[in-house]
């Protein structure tokens, strides 16, 4: 009898938990919806970065040697102190500060559109860069390093402890069943700069970003992207920033510019 009750408890609770977990963004039953159709928030449109943080490290190219706020390694410090923009120009690598790990901190506008049902495209007018957020899949083995790398995206699932084993949620359920965040993981990056004054990241860098949308009482729409850069070569821990973008009514202020090294 006790075993039967236990089985009943487990069945009911698993059923309830599965039901809650399966909720995700609300929608009609049927075949799985595409990432575009299942989007819990609309990130498309033109957005401007509003520089209320790190102003003197973003709105102007910081002074040589200024790596304040970034947890750099001694190896990185040597490169920071040796930064020479003329060498970058001579080597035609003016886009080093416009790679995925740095470009969202640069002043500018981004234009977000759906390239297709499974690919979100983010363009920047600063440096005229294009990032592609691909839902599902993994980087192909032939993927070559590039300024923007290879980005895998998903609509973030409910919070859980990373790597935790599956549990039987008796008398408990998982919470956070209505995630609204976009999670993007980027690898295959060409070495670049976290800041325009040559604070480096290397070819082992990886990038995790979370895009969160919100609307203010005055009607303004914003997203904040939390960026976590991990680089075992040049950072002594994850480098975490969050950058804020306000939605604009149209693309009238969109002005693509080339990369510059200074």
């Amino acid at each position, binding site marked *: 009898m006790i075993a039967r009750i236990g089985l009943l408890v487990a069945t009911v609770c698993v059923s309830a938990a599965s039901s809650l977990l399966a909720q995700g963004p609300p929608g009609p039953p049927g075949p799985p919806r595409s990432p575009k159709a299942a989007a819990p928030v609309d990130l498309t449109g033109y957005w401007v970065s509003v520089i209320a943080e790190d102003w003197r490290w973003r709105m*102007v190219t910081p*002074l040589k040697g200024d790596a304040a706020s970034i947890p750099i390694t001694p190896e990185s410090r040597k490169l920071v102190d040796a930064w020479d923009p003329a060498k970058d120009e001579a080597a035609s690598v003016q886009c080093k500060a416009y790679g995925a790990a740095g470009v969202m901190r640069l002043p500018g506008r981004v234009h977000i559109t759906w390239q297709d049902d499974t690919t979100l495209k983010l363009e920047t007018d600063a440096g005229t860069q294009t990032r592609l957020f691909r839902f599902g899949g993994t980087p192909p083995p032939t993927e070559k390093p590039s300024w923007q790398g290879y980005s895998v995206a998903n609509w973030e699932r409910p919070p859980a402890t990373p790597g935790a084993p599956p549990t039987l949620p008796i008398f408990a359920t998982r919470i956070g069943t209505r995630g609204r*965040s976009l999670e993007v993981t980027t690898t295959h990056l060409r070495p670049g700069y976290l800041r325009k004054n040559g604070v480096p990241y290397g070819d082992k860098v990886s990038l995790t970003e979370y895009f969160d949308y919100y609307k203010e009482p005055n009607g303004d729409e914003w997203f904040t992207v939390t960026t976590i850069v991990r680089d075992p070569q040049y950072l002594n821990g994850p480098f975490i920033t969050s950058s804020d973008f306000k939605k604009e009514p149209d693309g009238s202020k969109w002005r693509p510019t080339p990369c510059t090294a200074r």
Partner: protein
Amino acid sequence: MARSGVPLPARLAEYVAAGLQTGFILALLLACASPAAAQVDFSGQWAPVYHEDNAERIPGPELADYTGLPLNDAARLQADTWDADRISVVSSYQCRPHSADYGMRGLGNLRVWADLDEKQQLVAFHTYMPAWGSERTIWMDGRPHPPDYAEYTFQGFSTGVWEGNMLTITTTHLKTNYYRRNGVPASDKRTVVEHWTRHAEFLTVVTVVTDPVFLTEPLVRSQNWFNDVGQALPAFNCEYASELPGAQEVPNHLPGTNPYLTEFADWYGLELAATRGGAETMYPEYRLKMGAPHSKPPDRCKRYCTCGGGFNCDVNPARR
């Protein structure tokens, strides 16, 4: 005999058994259900991340650095009168806590815990930050904000609502305070909206401040913490002390007399107008009209160049 041919007592027993089973299942479903309104549990120990504006938030801001703030002229006028000796002379400034909004930007270690009622429904979140022993309550039970004539405090009155996995908090009834610790004022007319999101071990809080007295548009900033289960927070002790005995006046700079307003621009090679803040200076197109630095820029960084993730933030370290 009943219609089905089953004896009535036996059928009655089946009904009772079925009813009990249904009730049991319903009870179990209720027991398994989480609080209806809760989406994310922010409870825990959170350690701050100082990877933005480290030099401003840890050692403290330079005088007359108003960059990135959508200030109006009234705010600049008041900030220009600031003299840090004021803290040494005026005892009421000495143990003055950061307000709820600046506290989240100045950013300290944070503990969050939840109040649940007897039905395990979320009533409130509480936060504690050791800096000045600041404790907040964020009401989650739908109660309204008090009338305008109610008490104003440094932590204000906060209510929260869920927007999916995001907790949106509105805070009113805040005392006057500051947007930056170099005298940039914040009025008691301001309203603060916060958006809390948790991504794995990271907490991001966006603060949106609307202040009709000192800001020309909302001030939007975001800051980060990581979950640190080993963190333990101490109590905070602050005692008043007369640091400038005999001072006869509140240290200040009358309008037009502050001699230190250009230092920040000179040290970092910046246009002086940009260091005065203002909404216009916060948008990318300002770079097109930005003028020349106030004086010849240094050839390399000479102040606060090595502030990393923690406190290794000397003004001018020996290495250089």
